[in-house]
């Protein structure tokens, strides 16, 4: 804190808003199965202090300070939805805020400069329960701080602004920093540093090189660096060593696999139809297209257009058609007795909800049954969007149960085509044979020869059908004549209201000039630079990928109920930068990981001096000083200010991939049909005897060791360790994952076959390649998992544990043999059994460390 930064305006807006002011129970932290949710649920003491301190110093900003309260507490009765609107008052529009009250034209809700004449303010602050707003029965409340904000806002002129996310981002000027307290490597750092300086905080120093390489390798590729890569990086003293490492990682095919993980969540991708019987489907070609597109660095606008409307491009390539599988990844119902139209409507609805959540960060689904309660979207506008997705030649149900449902693209490999042709010929023959046998028989069903011919025919047809199915992928295709689309009253498939045309919500910009009014036009509109949402949504989610939380924490919603951004100008700068970079995802992410902000250490540090200084400056010192706010992790537990790097538990897939990688078991192979690694027996069958996905049989050989991205995903009985480590259910689009810490995760890491076998494989490497002494071997394993050498205390503990286990296994060879028998991979018989078992236990300890499953 010696070098006080001098800051020149433009002032960066920002003060932390407490998430805790709503009386509703957003997250009580009373945990159920253990424990403490590790995301988003912590309360920042800091945030609260800031509400009462900084806020009194800076002018009120309507969008930051007032709109969120109006939206959350008032819009339900005074918002966009007419059916629930009271007294005709709309507080989501400027005329409602400032204009005459519909019921009392002589009065206004808010009169600039005059709280006493502002009828809404009078109602908010009224002591009379009959007068008070919000009414008690709404279960909504305003606290005193919020009421005070309204007063100040009125006194300062009651200025109104449209919702920030619906206004095209303007590229903000870079805040200039003189005498920076930390390195400024690129514009990201300017925005972060200015905000930190406002809070009298300084950034953390750069992480040590080994930590940094492991962090960026896991973030970009999902695989930790090898010790050789770490050594080379540590030895490389050139100034661009880190940049070259980043370039190497971005060029790795692992990058595309890592990027695809979350995209599969967004796209509700799975290997089965979902719903009741949950039959198998074959959509892995779409998944491989996604991996390939990320690896080829297909610009995000093109990536978008091909997935939403590749079929409508002129002379679409096979890849462009496969890409449209994005909107065929929805569930398909095959239950007996269902009404097809009901489920066709569900499919269309799913496409609208998914597409608007993924690209626009909007909760369009709210407007299916009624006008949106918070955002300016009518129910009619919802169905106008639905009209874009309503023209697929589909029934809405899986008539044939198993496999892909039309429209499909057939993509047999040459040898598969050959087999299909053979089968077709054989079927013809078999048909002829059967007809011959059946001819002149009174009842062919009772004739042996006819029955035999029939069986042969059935067998051939079944094989043909299955191969035909397996070599296809579901795609979008327009009907020659679009279906009529109707507003559905209360969202019900059979309650048709007025007929609507395809079109866009009035609150958002119109179609770009020349764009057709179909899915292609919609896709072009989504990625048009005039669209205020898409670039912000993407920038915010990519930020979340590297920092654990979005600049807007509600990455799933940028509508009126969105959280105010922690760094609004940075968000807009990033959004405009994405467009400036022509949606180059690799370049954009490279910029993020090259920033000093990303490269900070994640270690805690004492910041008492910082806080004291600031607190005393605003006359709030006493309360703060006694609250013992002494560390970064305490004053900003969610790390929204980014005075340090986040520590994040690895995603489910990465936890497993890393164990396979460090043990040498990982089989790296891009793409192909999904694989079946170990899974406890009976999981598919104990609750389901329908469909063809029964009796799970794990693969032999490489299928056990592929990256988790390729694990077979049955929607109604998902891979259990994926669920335990927070992979969403894949039934509907999910753009957000929890990050939990539970005892079930501990049990999986301790006892699941994959991890026990990986520990043994790592132990074999310790003995075979890790050096001659236990100390060297422990170092070897620890480095592979944690990316660093253990310190003295750690090495001593591990060594003592190893010796203890060795003694035990020397006495009990049977136990050793049993432990070493876990997993398909054959044990290296040349190694001493007791030594290998003891090393396996050491490897288990290492694979279970918090540090191992965390990127620091």
């Amino acid at each position, binding site marked *: 804190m010696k070098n006080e930064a001098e800051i020149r305006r433009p002032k960066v807006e920002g003060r932390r808003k407490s998430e805790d002011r709503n009386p*509703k129970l957003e997250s*009580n932290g*009373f*945990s*159920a*199965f*253990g*424990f403490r*949710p590790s995301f988003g649920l912590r*309360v920042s*003491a800091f945030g609260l202090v800031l509400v009462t301190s900084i806020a009194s110093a800076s002018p009120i900003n309507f969008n930051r300070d007032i709109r969120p309260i109006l939206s959350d507490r008032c819009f339900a009765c005074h918002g966009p939805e007419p059916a629930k609107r009271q007294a005709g008052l709309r507080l989501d529009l400027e005329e409602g805020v400032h204009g005459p009250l519909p019921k009392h034209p002589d009065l206004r809700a808010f009169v600039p400069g005059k709280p006493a004449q502002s009828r809404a303010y009078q109602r908010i602050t009224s002591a009379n329960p009959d007068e008070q707003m919000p009414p008690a029965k709404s*279960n909504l409340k305003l606290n005193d701080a919020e009421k005070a904000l309204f007063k100040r806002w009125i006194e300062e002129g009651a200025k109104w602004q449209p919702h920030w996310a619906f206004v095209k981002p303007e590229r903000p000027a870079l805040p200039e920093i003189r005498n920076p307290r930390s390195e400024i490597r690129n514009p990201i750092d300017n925005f972060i540093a200015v905000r930190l300086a406002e809070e009298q905080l300084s950034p953390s120093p750069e992480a040590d090189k080994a930590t940094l390489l492991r962090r960026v390798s896991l973030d970009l590729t999902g695989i930790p660096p090898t010790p050789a890569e770490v050594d080379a990086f540590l030895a490389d003293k050139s100034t661009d060593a880190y940049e070259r490492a980043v370039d190497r990682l971005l060029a790795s095919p692992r990058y595309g696999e890592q990027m695809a993980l979350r995209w599969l969540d967004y796209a509700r991708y799975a290997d089965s139809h979902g*719903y*009741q019987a949950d039959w198998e489907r074959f959509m892995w070609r779409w998944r491989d297209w996604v991996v390939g597109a990320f690896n080829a660095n297909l610009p995000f606008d093109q990536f978008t257009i091909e997935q939403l409307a590749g079929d409508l491009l002129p002379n679409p390539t096979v890849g462009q058609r496969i890409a449209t599988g994005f909107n065929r990844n929805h569930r398909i119902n095959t*239950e*007996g*007795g*269902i*009404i097809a139209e009901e489920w066709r409507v569900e499919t269309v609805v799913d496409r609208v909800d998914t597409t608007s959540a993924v690209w626009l960060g909007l909760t369009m689904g*709210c407007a299916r049954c009624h006008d949106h309660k*918070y955002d300016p979207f009518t129910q009619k506008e919802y169905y106008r969007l639905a009209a874009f997705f309503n023209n697929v030649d589909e029934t809405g149900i899986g008539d044939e149960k198993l496999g892909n449902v039309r429209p499909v693209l057939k993509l047999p490999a040459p040898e598969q085509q050959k087999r299909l042709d053979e089968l077709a010929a054989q079927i013809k023959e078999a048909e002829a044979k059967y007809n011959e046998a059946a001819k002149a028989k009174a009842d062919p069903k009772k004739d042996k020869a006819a029955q035999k011919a029939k069986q042969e025919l059935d067998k051939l047809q079944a094989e043909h059908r299955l191969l035909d199915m397996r070599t296809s992928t579901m795609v979008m295709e327009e009907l020659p004549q679009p279906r009529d689309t109707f507003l559905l009253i209360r969202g019900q498939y059979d309650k048709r209201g007025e007929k609507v045309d395809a079109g866009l919500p009035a609150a958002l910009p119109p179609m770009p000039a020349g764009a057709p009014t179909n899915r292609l036009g919609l896709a072009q509109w989504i990625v048009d630079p005039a669209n205020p949402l898409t670039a912000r949504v993407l920038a915010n989610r990519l930020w979340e990928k590297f920092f654990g939380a979005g600049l807007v924490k*509600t990455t799933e*919603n940028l509508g009126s*109920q969105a959280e105010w951004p922690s760094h609004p100008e940075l968000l807009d700068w990033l959004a405009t930068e994405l467009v400036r970079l022509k949606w180059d995802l690799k370049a954009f992410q490279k910029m993020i990981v090259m920033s000093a902000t990303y490269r900070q250490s994640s270690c805690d540090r004492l910041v008492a001096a910082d806080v004291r200084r600031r607190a005393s400056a605003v006359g709030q010192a006493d309360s703060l000083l006694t609250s013992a706010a002494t*560390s*970064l992790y305490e004053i900003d*537990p969610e790390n929204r200010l980014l005075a340090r790097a986040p*520590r994040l538990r690895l995603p489910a897939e990465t936890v497993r991939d890393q164990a396979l990688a460090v043990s040498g078991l990982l089989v790296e192979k891009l793409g192909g049909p999904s694989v079946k690694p170990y899974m*406890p027996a*009976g999981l598919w069958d*104990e609750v389901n005897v*329908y469909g063809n996905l029964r009796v799970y049989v794990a693969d032999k050989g490489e299928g056990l060791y592929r990256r988790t991205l390729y694990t077979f995903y049955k929607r*109604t*009985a998902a891979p259990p360790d994926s*669920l*335990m480590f927070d992979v969403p*259910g894949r039934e509907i689009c999910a753009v957000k994952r929890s990050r*939990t*810490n*539970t*005892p079930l995760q501990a*049990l999986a890491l*301790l*006892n699941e076959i994959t991890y026990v076998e990986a520990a043994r494989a790592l132990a074999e490497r310790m003995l075979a390649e890790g050096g001659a002494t236990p100390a060297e071997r422990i170092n070897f394993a620890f480095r592979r998992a944690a990316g660093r050498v253990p310190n003295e205390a*750690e090495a001593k*503990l591990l060594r003592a544990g190893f010796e*203890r286990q060795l003694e*035990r296994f020397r006495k009990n060879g049977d*136990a050793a*043999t*049993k*432990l070493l*028998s*876990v997993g398909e991979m054959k044990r290296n018989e040349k190694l001493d059994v007791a030594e290998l078992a003891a090393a396996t236990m050491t490897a*288990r*300890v290492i694979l279970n*460390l*918090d*540090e191992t499953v*965390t990127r620091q």
Partner: protein
Amino acid sequence: MQDSSPHSFVSIPLSSLASLSRRTFLQRSAAGIGLAALHSLVGESRGALPNHTPRAKRVIYLFQSGAPSQMDLFDYKPRLQKFRAQELPDSIRMGQRITTMTSGQKSFPVAPSIFKFAQHGNSGAWLSELLPHTAEIVDDLAFIKTMHTEAINHDPAITFFQTGSQIAGRPSIGSWMAYGLGSENRDLPAYVVLTSKGTGRRDDQPLYDRLWGSGFLPTQHQGVKFRNAGDPVLYLSNPPGVDRETTREMLDDVNALNRIQHEAVGDPEIAARIAQYEMAFRMQASVPELTDISKEPQPILDLYGPEVRTPGTYAATCLLARRLAERGVRFIQLFHMGWDHHANLPKALRGQCRDTDQPTAGLIADLKQRGLLEDTLVVWGGEFGRTVYTQGTLTPENYGRDHHPRCFTIWMAGAGVRGGVSLGETDDYCYNIVRDPVHVHDLHATILHLMGVDHLKLTYKFQGRWFRLTDVAGNIITPIIA
């Protein structure tokens, strides 16, 4: 610090606490382990639960998956006999939608139940002859004859019952309870699911992860499904060759190394990880202890019937439910499959009742004699009802019934419930509700109410909207509340 909040399910051994610095101690507070400390720090209430004095501390929900036939079990319709084989009048059906399994039928002949009914208990409740053991406990039960729902197919209907929405992605009722009220047991999950297959129909409706999923709530609130074969909880057993003592030594090393890292890095998440490993270790003892019924006295086992010793039977899961309730598990949900009787209903229904009647009654009796029924709420029911008209051919001995969402029977018992009452009335065809309809949201509101939770106040903000289990509806079913 330990258990500073009654709801906190995190416990960190004092030995590890002692080695953590004061700084860490405070961090943990801020991170949610000591919420009481946090509240005083931020000086703000978070709408603590329960909202009012709970009548029930826990729920045992006996879900009968597939939809039991209400007019063959509970809703006695003597006048139906005279309409036998006659067409269901249009005045009754009123053009309401029916599934495509029967919408193609040329006729909809009325199929009265072939089972005999009699009155039982002081309350005089009518019950089918298929439920002789339930007959013994009718005075403890509150029947709701007028449940109705919105879906007509299994998947959306059971999803609706479990989550308050037909749309996938919402939290299940048990997850809401786990989120809102937490657990009373440090060594077991707050929400446990048990499943069993019925003998009435072996190929019956499947169940899905979603039914006990946490939807948009943090995933640690999802139900933990106990398995009937292998480890009751996934990955509970140590690998072969590794005994409990060895695991203890190994975990001591893991924890010690994590503490070193914690000292160096200062992230409270590491302290939480240590706590989770300790809990995992405790579960390795508590779960086998829970599932080991060898010490149950024979008279108790007899209450649940002859199948109680066979793992995976409904009887065995009923006994486990009592053992879970004793240990303070908040929401215990059984799913018994096999109730979807489109064809051969009489035979299939006999099988289902043989599976469930005695264990259900035994569970109630067992809870009652232990005093557990006073603070345990028990709910019995399926996802919809069945049609009065036959699906397929009607013969003197045989008929089938299609899905019927417009009225069906469930019952509740135990904490806060008035025993011996029957709510609601359906028409003579058991097709429409005449009086006192009860919607799924009403049932949910009532379960929450008995658990001390105002269904309007148990909310979670997702995608900018405050969600409730009861969506925008729900009325408490006051007539059945004691």
